């Protein structure tokens, strides 16, 4: 299958290894990667801040480039939700409504794509560590990927021990521009998340969304908490 890969701006700039891991995994499974180099951002920051005209200016090239793809894999639940769910609202009652609906039906968050579209759960990875999962809100609730796909994938990783935290489904407090507009609330939410993760004594917090991990890691580093974060794709690419 020809898989079109959408790499969000912050993954591109800060976490390129996540993108490379996804490429490596999909190529190993025999798929061809189509990477639209001209795309950088899905438009979510402007959309979430209420500036829908400016969001459309960023989103329209994405929509036009991705609409003819066979399947689109998005390396973040949050940007995935933007393209799959919110483009339909953003382009509602415009000439692009149909394109947004069509694109929506072929967009996949990475773990959802592996488990539900390709039917793959065992990638032959080995990761000899204790991990705990953070369910990113957008993947969990907005995309409806649910809790299963990342857990199924982790269950097949050799020597990996998964310890669930009590607040796995609770938001980490990032929320895009929310983290900058209401830093006190965002930080408090992050503290709740970190405390819950620490209770498990896991070596790593794993998630399928780098934006949450960026927030959790940034807070843990500042507070000197022994927390390391890793994206699901990076674990699955280990051998």
């Amino acid at each position, binding site marked *: 299958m020809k898989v079109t890969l959408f*790499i969000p*701006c*912050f993954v*591109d*700039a*800060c*976490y*390129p*290894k996540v*993108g*490379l891991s996804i490429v490596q995994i999909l190529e190993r499974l025999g798929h061809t990667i189509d990477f639209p*180099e*001209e795309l*950088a*951002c899905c*438009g979510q*920051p*402007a959309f*979430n*801040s*209420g*500036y*829908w005209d*400016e*969001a459309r*200016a*960023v989103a329209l090239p994405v929509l036009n480039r991705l609409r003819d793809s066979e399947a689109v894999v998005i390396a973040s639940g949050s940007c995935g939700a933007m393209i799959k769910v*919110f483009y339909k*609202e953003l382009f509602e009652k415009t000439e692009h409504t149909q394109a947004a609906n069509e694109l929506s039906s072929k967009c996949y968050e990475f773990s959802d794509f592996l488990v539900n579209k390709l039917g793959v759960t065992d990638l032959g990875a080995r990761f000899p560590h204790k991990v705990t999962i953070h369910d990113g*809100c*957008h993947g969990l*609730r*907005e995309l409806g990927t649910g809790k299963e796909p990342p857990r199924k994938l982790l269950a097949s990783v050799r020597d990996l021990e998964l310890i669930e935290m009590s607040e796995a489904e*609770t*938001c980490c*407090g*990032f*929320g*895009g521009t*929310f*983290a*900058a*507009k*209401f*830093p*006190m*609330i*965002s*930080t*408090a*939410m*992050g503290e*709740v998340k970190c405390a819950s993760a620490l209770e498990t004594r896991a070596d790593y917090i794993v998630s399928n969304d780098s934006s949450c991990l*960026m*927030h959790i*890691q*940034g*807070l843990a*580093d*500042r507070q000197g908490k022994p927390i390391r974060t890793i994206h699901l794709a990076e674990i699955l690419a280990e051998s």
Partner: protein
Amino acid sequence: MIPFFKEFKQQATRLTHDLRHRGLIQTALKKYEISRDAKKSRFQSWETARQAAAETKWEAINHLDKYLVEFAQKLEARGTHVHWASTAEQARDIIVKIVRDKKARSIIKSKAMTAEEIHLNDALEHAGFEVVESDLGEYIVQLRHEAPYHIVFPAMHLTRGEISALFQRELGSAPTDNPEELTMIARRALRGKYIAADIGITGVNFAIAETGMISITENEGNARLTAALPKTMISLLGIEKVLPRLEDLALFLPMLATAGAGQALTGYNTMYGGPRQPGECDGPEEFHVVLLDNKRTHLLADAEQRDALHCIRCGACLNVCPIYKNVGGHTYGTTYQGPIGSVITPHLRGLQDWKHLSSASSLCGACTETCPVKINLHHHLLQNRRNAMAEKPVWWEKLAFKGFAFVVNRPRLYDLGKKLARIGQAFHPLIKGTAFDPARSWTQTRELPELAPQSFHELWKERK
């Protein structure tokens, strides 16, 4: 900055740093979650129940004109006085006039968020009447001269010790931290008030159009006493409370109890269809029902957000909201707190004054997921943000997003931007956390992620 926004930020800053408060709320709501889940599992299918409830409310809200008239006519046929209030002021005036006409001295009142919304107690006290709250939680916050902290659990922010200290101070009771004893202290103080009251004021959980009845749900029996003992009963409700059929209660009563308090059914569920009829041995001699609009019809006119009128005020969205859990109920400065409050307050009290509540959300969607009547809460927060910015954009934000769009749509410019950012990052430690730091709101409490030496775009090019 708008005063309400400033106040919100100040309170949020104070409470997010208060670890005792955080622990108190998280513990209380954890207990709720456990019992809610246990009761949810008693439904054959909670999801199907939600869908059925949403459809019933959709039907009711989209035919309010028909169902409200049916409700009022059925009530009037049995001698109830039905009043229509377009505004909070009208509702207050109607109720104060009834109380004056009855030459009442004291009033007993059971829980009614609508009464909080129109500041009814203030109006009655201003007119010279004593009003006593009979719901235990409401009574406690009334003694503290505070607003309810939560739609359903008004005093959840207080410990037993604090309540005991309050009762010692206000009621002269002996110290105790036994919950039963605390309840008995309040009960003894309240019994006299029921007997003395000339007027009983209640809220309404559901209004049944088919039979012209109001349904009241409670756990303490206080609403029954409030309705039964005084000679005159006044019930105040928002127009969105209407349900088409009596049989709808078979779904809505267990649903409200489960979502609201983690109960299978609330302790007391009562229906009132009018004043005492000839041959009946109890009930009020006179029964008034006050229907309140207070901008609900504005929300009804908004096709996108009309479903916010489905709300049955169960408080489930507050209970799962990580914002509510960290800032608490008073911080909102609204009658209705949490996600539902952030959605409807801009409609009820002005978008520009209350738009900050829609921004104060990480859009995690836990509210929408839990709402028993399937209100698309967090999408409505996004729509409020859009409407607020379309009406009155913040010029520098708009300019920044225009600039951002200009850059990301030009790959070479965007590449240059990333290279410059890498250079900038090397010098960032010099200003980190200071007033000159453009990322200050992040870096005051968190580390920024490091930019990778090569971006994915660059690595991809090399790979090819």
